[in-house]
């Protein structure tokens, strides 16, 4: 039996694997990639964000429904249903990311939600609607809240680990499959 003496991952040196993405990838002689620390960090970060975001909304669905109405995106008749379902979706996505379970589906939905939240914020910012972001706290303030631009920047930053996870889960994985490494 061949003994694996090289436990340290080494730089990928296959031809055709040049480029920024490939230079971040390292693999060992077993074909395993060595970028897990970053991947795991992004997973944990986004997982905690989604779990934290879900708690207040699960505890106070009526207040969250008010926030949804104030965004003036969905019809009012859909506000209650959304307020009941969306927090639990965030909860399950957060758990999936933390545990590392069903990652393709979780990563896809996380990015979809983040893009949707950011899009609605930008849309309301563009049309001048002064709406308090109900992302982590469903208490509707009296106007003495942070500028909406702050929430746009914050949600935009959340997309960084989101896109990274998406890249790692779908695009890098595809490259891995193409090179026959699995």
């Amino acid at each position, binding site marked *: 039996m061949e003994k694996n003496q090289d436990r340290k991952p080494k730089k990928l040196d296959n031809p055709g694997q040049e480029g920024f993405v490939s230079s971040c990838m390292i693999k060992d002689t077993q074909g395993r990639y060595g970028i897990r620390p970053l991947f795991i960090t992004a997973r944990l970060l986004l997982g905690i964000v989604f779990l934290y975001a879900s708690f207040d909304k699960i505890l106070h669905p009526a207040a969250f429904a008010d926030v949804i109405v104030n965004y003036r995106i969905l019809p009012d008749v859909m506000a209650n249903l959304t307020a009941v379902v969306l927090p639990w979706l965030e909860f399950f996505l957060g758990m999936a990311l933390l545990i590392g379970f069903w990652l393709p*589906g979780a990563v896809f939905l996380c990015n979809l939600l983040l893009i949707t939240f950011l899009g609605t914020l930008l849309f309301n910012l563009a049309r001048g609607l002064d709406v308090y972001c109900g992302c982590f706290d469903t208490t509707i303030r009296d106007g003495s809240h942070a500028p909406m631009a702050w929430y746009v920047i914050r949600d935009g930053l959340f997309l960084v680990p989101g896109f990274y996870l998406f890249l790692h889960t779908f695009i890098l994985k595809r490259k891995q499959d193409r090179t026959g490494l699995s």
Partner: protein
Amino acid sequence: MSDEPATSVKEKETPGRRMLWQSGVLIVFAIITGLLINQVRTDGLALVATADPDVSNEEGAAGSLLLTLEEARRLFIEKEAVFLDARSPKYYEKGHLAGARSLPLEAVETKTFEVLADVPRDAALITYCDGKNCVLAKRLATTLREMGFQNVRVLANGWTRWVKMGLPTEKGSTGNAS
């Protein structure tokens, strides 16, 4: 030579295909869990709207802070009430009920007596903002009551409903607290 076992059908499943069914199942889990929890909790939400979304259920009820649009309209025509816009000056200037005075909630502590200098304590005051769930008008009304103005009512979702009914409005900073 590789010692890897032969890949099964499941292992050959692409991330894209996994993404689709996993996303679907997660969404279904969320729907089922959300609906079940909503059903058993005491503060569950009504999932089917049965009332006019612009109108609150409390409106016009005995002892309620809220008054109906018809009542507000009557008081407006007969000039028996002072209307107070609880929104920020930016929205007040874009449009407000004709003759309404601007008294943003954030300025209630500093501007009330200036805005209402000529208004007796027992005068009828009607606060409004925009959106059925806007809390600015209710909070303004509550604060005014604490300050000694006893006859304060709220026109819920006042701006939208007033405009919908084609009632008089105006723009600019007329009546604005400077």
